């Protein structure tokens, strides 16, 4: 029987049965569970394909992928910190944008005064941490609402930054600093593998290779070198990832933990292929960007902290039920303090990256709006506005989705004003979907 079009003249009984049949089929294939679980990934893929078609696949080209990472490094770093604050009960930190400006400004002053860049980096991190500890004190111990304490910080630290820089732009255009924290030609891992594996580059530059077909959007006429180190890093990371997953599956099997092995194998294969593909793409450009080194480090550490450590567990528990957690012997106030001290530290790192990206810090607008990008990435990535729910992996997808949308709209030259409208709508729709899918469950 054919499904009748909705609103057609057929009797409602017939419509109902074909509709019911459709629903039944959907239920059998577990389409709804699948959609619910992987909404954001599906949205991400759809957005990539849409912008790919509109931009002639430029969005996936070696250059744009590399740029995407450099432009959004601060979002990933700050969102990792923001996620921990949100986990404690939907608390946010509004001050991070200003703290980025302040710590970056301190770094600029130190480096301009001729101090070794590594001292400057250390001071920037410690300043961020100190600010986090300071704000965390008010929030955790005195119980000033986080929203207000960090709003105060948002005003104050931008003011201090402007004062210490004398209202002038701070300069961070120093070759050694940019090499590690910038996005210039030199800000990549040096290709030391090229001499160890001398034939690889030549082989890869052969334009008849199958990989050329894998990289839509990349203009191979302009490609003159292949970064062997970048590709090797990709292969090593993918292998480590597969090894960890295999170990996990085997342990689960040994302990008789119910699991869906095909789903785990599929996700493992897809993620390792993605890692390989991104590294292959970047290898045809300038190689493995330093920004990605810092981002990967931060994401790896925080995925571990939230998943595997006691403090991570406490963050989820406090957000899920603070009273029960306190009665379980957890010092809940210290959990808040940890979350805010931690985001201060990460704001310090983001300050370093912002100074590197812009080759300096302008106190008028450096870090402006960073806090909102980080918050949006967490919520799009499925964190609960009430706390207790949210994962680093979700946040990564949220931040990537936002980054891709920004990038894509720039590539198809959407006016700036409308870009903001689209970002707002994406946030609303993402959270709306989350709220609705939860309501259906109840």
């Amino acid at each position, binding site marked *: 029987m054919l499904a009748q079009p909705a609103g057609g003249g057929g009797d409602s009984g017939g419509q109902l049965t074909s509709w019911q049949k459709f629903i039944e089929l959907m239920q059998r294939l577990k389409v709804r569970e699948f959609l619910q679980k992987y909404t954001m990934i599906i949205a991400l893929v759809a957005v990539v394909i849409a912008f790919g078609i509109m931009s002639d696949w430029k969005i996936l080209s070696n250059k744009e992928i590399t740029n995407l990472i450099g432009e959004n490094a601060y979002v990933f770093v700050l969102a990792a910190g923001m996620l921990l604050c949100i986990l404690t009960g939907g608390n946010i930190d509004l001050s991070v944008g200003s703290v980025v400006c302040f710590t970056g400004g301190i770094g600029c002053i130190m480096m301009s005064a001729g101090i070794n860049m590594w001292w400057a980096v250390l001071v920037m991190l410690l300043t961020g941490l100190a600010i986090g500890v300071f704000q965390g004190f008010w929030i955790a111990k005195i119980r000033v609402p986080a929203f207000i304490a960090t709003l105060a910080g948002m005003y104050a630290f931008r003011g201090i930054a402007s004062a210490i820089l004398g209202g002038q732009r701070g300069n961070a255009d120093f070759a050694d600093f940019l090499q590690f924290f910038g996005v210039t030609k030199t800000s990549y891992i040096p290709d030391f593998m090229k001499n160890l594996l001398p034939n690889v580059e030549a082989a890869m530059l052969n334009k008849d290779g199958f990989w050329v077909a894998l990289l839509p959007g990349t203009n191979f006429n302009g490609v003159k070198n292949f970064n062997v180190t970048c590709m090797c890093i990709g292969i090593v990371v993918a292998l480590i990832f597969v090894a960890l997953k295999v170990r996990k599956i085997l342990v689960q099997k040994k302990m008789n933990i119910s699991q869906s092995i095909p789903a785990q194998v599929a996700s493992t294969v897809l993620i390792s292929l993605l890692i390989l593909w991104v590294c292959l793409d970047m290898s045809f450009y300038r190689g493995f960007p330093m920004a990605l080194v810092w981002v990967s480090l931060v994401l790896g550490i925080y995925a571990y902290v939230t998943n595997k450590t006691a403090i991570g567990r406490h963050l*989820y528990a406090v957000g899920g039920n603070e009273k*029960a957690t306190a*009665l379980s012997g957890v010092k809940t106030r210290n959990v808040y303090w940890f979350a805010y001290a931690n985001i201060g530290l990460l704001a310090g790192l983001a300050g370093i990256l912002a100074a590197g990206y812009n080759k300096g810090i302008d106190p008028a607008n450096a870090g402006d709006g960073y806090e909102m990008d980080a918050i949006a990435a967490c919520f799009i990535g499925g964190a609960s506005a009430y706390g207790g729910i949210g994962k680093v992996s979700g946040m990564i997808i949220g931040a990537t989705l936002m980054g891709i949308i920004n990038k894509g709209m720039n590539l198809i030259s959407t006016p700036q004003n409308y870009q903001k409208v689209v970002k707002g709508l994406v946030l609303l729709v993402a959270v709306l979907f989350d709220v609705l899918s939860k309501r259906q469950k109840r």
Partner: protein
Amino acid sequence: MAKILLEMKNITKTFPGVKALDNVNLQVEEGEIHALVGENGAGKSTLMNVLSGIYPFGTYEGDIIYDGKVCRFSNIKDSEKLGIVIIHQELALVPEMTIGENMYLGNECGHSLAINWNKTYAEADKYLRMVGLKESSKVQIKNIGTGKQQLVEIAKALAKKARLLILDEPTSSLNEEDSRALLDLMLSFKKQGMTMIIISHKLNEVSYVADKITVVRDGATIETIDNHGKEPVSEERIIRGMVGREITNRFPKRENVKIGDVRLEVNHWTVHHPLYTERKVVDDVSMYVRQGEVVGIYGLMGAGRTELAMSIFGRSYGVNFSGELKLDGKHVHLRKSASDAIKHKIAYVTEDRKGNGLVLSQSIKVNTSLANLEAISSHSVIDGDKEYAAAEEYRGKLKIKTPSVEQLVGNLSGGNQQKVLLAKWMFAEPDILLLDEPTRGIDVGAKYEIYCIINDLAAAGKCVVLISSELPEVLGMSDRIYIMNEAKIIGEMKAAEATQESIMTAILRSGRGA
């Protein structure tokens, strides 16, 4: 014979897994004061919530016939329109607002976009005088005492043109004097023709004020006693109805009863309320628990049992503590933190598993390990495999019915949630377990399983304190029973010698003496 104002016919209300009301029938005549009595959880409040539309039509079975018509309320507004007004045990007033604002909250005078404040305050004052309050209606609620707040609630009900007024434990937070004034006010309303339903635990008040007394037990109306005789109905007569028949075999037999030395002892333990610091919530309590012993603490709601247990558990409740806490005969000073109590091998299993016990958004596994993460981690890094194994072990031990320990606790039934809560505290490996209402709101089968767990714990040499407001449970499970009332321990009995009547009588005597 006066006209029947309200008739509730064959009301049945089921919650997931529990039948809260089972074919309840209730008749209230116009102009009478009708009392509902029964133990906690017998179904009195549920019945009143059905009547007032909090549980809307369609969520229960049976008929409500009010003033000759069958009613189908879909919310409180519907029932209030007909003059059925309920005053809840917990006062529903906003402290920062004035009396007048509170009285007309949601029922504002004038247009909803242009409130007529003059009329609001004039009307409010009029009703305040009717309940005997001299305060201006412009006084903020936080500035008047609890007794007067209760009267404001009644004035608020009058302002809604109440014809049938339902009072749920109206005197539970009042002192003797205020209570008496309130009851006299009810009697004067009755003279003016108002119909009232009162829910109360205080049987002396019930027999003083009520015309008829309906006894509710286990979700069913047992009997209605007429209180029109020359002598008021005796409290013993009401208690007989409340307690009812003996139920056999509800409790598993204790085996291997080996009672050892005193492990936990408190002497002259006094705790004050955290907000009203002059009020004592635990008053000069002395008690002890021996190894392998199950000690019951019985008392009505608000007697101070939870406060006692939580104050022993690292002073998790209250302020201005005094008295002595001894563990194994040695004086111990616990710092004000739950973690210190856990270190001293004390566990408190809360009565409020959703509010204070479990993280509903997390899995069984995460909840089980929460109070003892050290046991499954090294250098504060959690060993996921160890954690899983531990959660599995307790799932098996406590027969938690779930497809996997990765299941979210929020998706479990009440009985299984309670088992997860017990698993969490058993995993913390305490020597002393303070169990606060461990079987509240769960079905009979799960109760039996939890009783078995309690017996196993005692047999393993743990000290168990069982706090309960279910008399049969305390009698059936304990070796020794303390009776609490109004923050004090008013009696201690060996379970073998105690009866339901003797315990209830002890409580009533102390209440009257105070």
